[in-house]
């Protein structure tokens, strides 16, 4: 507490200077007056008394000066003087200042921009009331389970949503797809967010027979209803079912996903057994009640698991529900981006460190150049401490300027970051540079200033060379060379770590881009067709609709093939069924085979250019009622029939009696993601759309188009409208876009890290250049002597650059060591590359050496051109 008191007095002394001065004057005057009166009382004549009183006081101006000192004002005055002087010095050495300023601004700007993202995405509390008490209930995924918990939980309030779903709604010209979420009635109340206008769902809104109501998101309300209050009570038709608009949520409320446009109650009907107990897909969360510890709520949640298991209308495996748990909601939400964000933060921290080392290096060079001035000041009585303070003040000044410039830069960098980061990054839209981030930038700037300022300041303090022995020409000697070596070494180490990381990510990206997706994406246009409830409820109608659509599209000029599938390739949505495989029986207790299932129309293979390896593809004859058939992928064939012929073998969904005969084997296709199927998949099959096991709510159209597809893309909604007025069409895109979208996240990360690594490389090069050229300057005389004595240019070049190169390599090796350990943290981000990949580890030292050689060329050249006679005369 004492320092607060002192700071308060010091600041008062500094800011309210006139008042403090007046008080001091008044106090001393009062003293003189009392003393005078006292003397007069004792019989001294008035004039004499005044004189004597003044004499006891001594010189008033000196007393005042001492009082100011005592109040810490002197330190303040010195600081002001140092700052003013420092500013003059910085303005005079424009080259040095602008270089240092730019370096700091880059470092601080990058760090600030990335910090704002990490802060917004990872650190900032969720925009809900008391978010610390919100927990995600892992593995409570069945409606019945959630319903039982909500009705019986005593320690927590449970709510749920079904994730995002798309619905058809009336648009201006034709039906539009809008995304919304189906939620439990208490969804908003458990999150603790009230509607902006209107009300949220009444209790029991999920029960059959309840009035259908919808709550709109702020953005959707503005976009579709112009933000008018009259929207309340109007009808919003979703999949041909009218919902009454009950309320509008405040701006910024966008749970469970940023693109959510509305919320409607989920259905909770215990009598609809399949729906209630049979389908996973509920996301359940809970708010702990007041005073309840997470452990207690977790225990209560788990205690219900065996009871719920017994409530299932069919027997559940004993292992059901073992993973039920409560995790902090924020943890759950950011789990997917945590590693990425922290990686980026680490990367910019390294860039900042390199920047700091660079500026420290510049400052030391600057101090060496100012040797004469500093020596003069020491001779005039400045203590080493005073000199150190002066240098430190200059550094902090520089860092502050760098911080301001860097913050301005950060605004631009953040805009770039937002553009570059994958769109799915949670809460990215909320990220901005606000007070917290500015505070962070200020702290980083000040810290950096102290960091790069301390080294030169400490050197000045312990510098014997500052003692004027040699006419101010003593140079920085061996310790200067040692510091230079240390700087180069640390810079090389930091840069190496960055380069290894960037190398691994770029290599991994390269591997991904060179994965053969198994199909030909060029000239293929895709679109998602949502026929609406009346059609999608029946497989016959869906297939018939597709045939009409295909007829219409095929008539469009340039269209070669049109096909449909339930899900496009490279779509990270699960489409799998549990099957029995002939020749490979499983004991009844063991988990059955789960295989990826794609439902396709006969033209699918031709449209996507997927190679048929064996047997035949689907034909129009493989329709409902005909013998069920499947195609299997090459690796599935290899796995189950390694040396036999899979044709004619059979597969059967576990809940069906009828076997499906394998009629063909096709090349492997990346249907789920570039890195392949999830590892718990046991194989991959295709079934005819007309024999689909799971009813698709939407179908993905794929069309191979000759020539420019742009016109076709534009005409697509109208063409479909002609044959199906209730159909909504969206996600019109080229297949190539779909493919590149599949690597969007790794690509942006690799480019970002690569960009920062490049920046670091540039900074490191500048640093090496600084150290080597400084070395040449320092050793001009020595080089002159050597040249005069007949040293070869090569040996001189080695003399000036050799030691730097050696430290560079040493630093780089140290960096490799650190990177070797650190890469463990990013292993999950890598694909198709070993985390200790030889190339990524071998290249950085080589690249660094080349860069360092390049950076040394100019100073080496300069050293070689030193005129021995002149350097000796002047040295």
């Amino acid at each position, binding site marked *: 507490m004492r320092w607060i008191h002192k700071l308060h*007095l010091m600041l008062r002394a500094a800011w309210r200077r006139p008042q403090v001065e007046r*008080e*001091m004057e008044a106090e001393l005057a009062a*003293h003189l007056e*009392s003393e005078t009166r006292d003397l007069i009382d004792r019989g001294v004549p008035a004039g004499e008394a005044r004189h004597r009183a003044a004499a006891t006081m*001594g010189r008033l101006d*000196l007393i005042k000066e001492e*009082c100011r000192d005592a109040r810490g004002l002197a330190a303040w005055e010195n600081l002001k003087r140092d700052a003013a002087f420092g500013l003059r010095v910085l303005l005079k050495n424009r080259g040095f200042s602008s270089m240092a300023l730019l370096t700091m601004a880059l470092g601080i700007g990058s760090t600030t921009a990335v910090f704002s993202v990490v802060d917004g995405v990872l650190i900032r509390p969720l925009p809900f009331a008391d978010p610390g008490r919100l927990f995600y209930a892992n593995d409570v995924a069945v409606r019945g389970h959630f319903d039982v918990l909500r009705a019986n939980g005593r320690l927590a309030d449970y709510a749920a949503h079904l994730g995002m779903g798309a619905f058809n709604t009336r648009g201006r010209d034709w039906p539009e797809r809008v995304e919304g979420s189906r939620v439990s009635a208490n969804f908003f109340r458990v999150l603790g967010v009230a509607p902006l206008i209107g009300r949220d769902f009444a209790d029991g809104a999920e029960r059959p027979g309840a009035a259908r109501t919808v709550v709109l998101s702020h953005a959707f309300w503005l976009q579709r209803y112009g933000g008018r209050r009259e929207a309340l009570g109007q009808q919003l038709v979703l999949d041909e079912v009218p919902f009454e608009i009950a309320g509008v949520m405040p701006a910024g409320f966008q749970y469970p996903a940023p693109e959510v446009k509305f919320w409607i109650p989920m259905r909770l009907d215990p009598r609809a057994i399949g729906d209630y107990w049979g389908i996973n897909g509920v996301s359940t969360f809970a708010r702990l009640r007041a005073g309840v510890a997470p452990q207690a709520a977790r225990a209560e949640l788990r205690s219900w698991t065996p009871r719920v298991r017994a409530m299932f209308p069919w027997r559940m495996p004993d292992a059901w529900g073992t993973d039920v748990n409560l995790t902090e909601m924020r943890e759950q939400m950011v789990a997917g981006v945590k590693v990425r964000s922290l990686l980026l933060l680490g990367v910019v921290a390294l860039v900042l460190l390199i920047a700091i080392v660079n500026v420290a290096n510049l400052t030391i060079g600057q101090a060496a150049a100012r040797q004469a001035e500093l020596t003069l000041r020491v001779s005039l009585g400045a203590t080493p401490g005073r000199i150190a303070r002066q240098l430190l003040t200059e550094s902090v000044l520089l860092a502050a300027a760098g911080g301001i410039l860097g913050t301005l830069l950060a605004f631009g960098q953040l805009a770039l970051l937002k553009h570059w980061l994958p769109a799915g990054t949670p809460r990215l839209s909320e990220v901005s540079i606000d007070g917290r981030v500015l505070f962070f930038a200020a702290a980083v700037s000040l810290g950096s200033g102290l960091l790069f300022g301390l080294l030169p300041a400490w050197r000045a303090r312990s510098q014997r060379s500052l003692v004027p022995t040699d006419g101010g020409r003593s140079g920085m000697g061996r310790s200067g060379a040692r510091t230079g070596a240390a700087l180069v070494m640390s810079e090389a180490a930091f840069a190496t770590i960055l380069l290894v990381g960037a190398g691994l990510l770029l290599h991994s990206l390269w591997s991904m881009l060179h994965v053969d997706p198994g199909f030909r994406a060029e000239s293929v246009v895709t679109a998602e067709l949502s026929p609406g409830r009346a059609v999608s409820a029946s497989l016959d109608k869906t297939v018939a609709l597709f045939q009409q659509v295909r007829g219409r599209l095929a008539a469009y000029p340039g269209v070669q093939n049109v096909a449909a599938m339930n899900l496009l390739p490279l779509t990270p949505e699960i489409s799998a069924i549990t099957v029995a495989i002939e020749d490979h029986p499983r004991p009844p207790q063991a988990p059955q085979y789960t295989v990826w299932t794609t439902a396709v129309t006969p033209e699918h293979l031709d449209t996507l250019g997927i190679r048929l390896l064996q047997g035949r593809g689907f034909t129009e004859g493989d329709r409902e009622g005909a013998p069920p058939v499947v195609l299997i992928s090459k690796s599935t064939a290899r796995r189950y029939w390694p040396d036999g012929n899979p044709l004619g073998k059979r597969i059967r969904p576990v809940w069906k009696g009828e076997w499906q005969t394998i009629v063909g084997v096709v090349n492997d296709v990346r249907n789920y993601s570039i890195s392949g199927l999830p590892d718990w998949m046991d194989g991959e099959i295709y079934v005819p759309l007309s024999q689909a096991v799971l009813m698709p709510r939407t179908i993905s159209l794929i069309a191979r188009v000759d020539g420019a597809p742009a016109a076709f893309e534009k005409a697509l909604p109208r063409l479909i409208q002609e044959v199906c007025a209730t159909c909504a069409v969206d996600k019109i895109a080229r297949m190539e876009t779909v493919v590149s979208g599949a690597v969007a996240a790794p690509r942006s990360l690799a480019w970002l890290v690569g960009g920062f690594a490049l920046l670091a490389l540039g900074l490191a090069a500048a640093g090496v250049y600084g150290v080597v050229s400084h070395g040449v300057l320092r050793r001009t005389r020595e080089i002159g002597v050597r040249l005069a004595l007949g040293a070869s240019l090569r040996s001189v070049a080695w003399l000036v650059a050799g030691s730097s190169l050696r430290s560079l390599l040493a630093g780089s090796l140290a960096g490799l060591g650190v990177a070797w350990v650190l890469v463990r943290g990013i292993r999950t981000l890598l694909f198709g590359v070993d985390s200790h990949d030889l190339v990524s580890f071998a290249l950085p030292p080589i690249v660094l050496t080349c860069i360092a050689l390049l950076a040394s060329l100019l100073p080496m050249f300069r050293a070689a051109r030193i005129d021995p006679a002149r350097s000796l005369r002047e040295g």
Partner: protein
Amino acid sequence: MSKPTSLVQGTLYLLILKILDLEPRTGWAISQRLRQMSNETLQASHGSLYPALHKLEHEGWVSGEWRESAGGRPTKVYSLTRAGRRQLLLEAANWTKLSSAINGILESV
């Protein structure tokens, strides 16, 4: 120049703290009291008193407060803070230790 030669460096602080321990006083009253208590032996120059007072205030051991004097003029009255009382005990103890050590040396030689 204004440093009292007869006062060991730092002793002035101790004496001021001791005087203020009895009651709050103005700077002038402190100087009077100092003269009386030491039977005029310690003639601290009045000039050195104020820097000392301001230093003590800066350390948070005394606090200054502006009051109306008898004559109606505002005067600054100093009083001891709690931290000042602690400091007084500490410095008094140090002083006793130091002086007894010096006495011991003087007597034994």
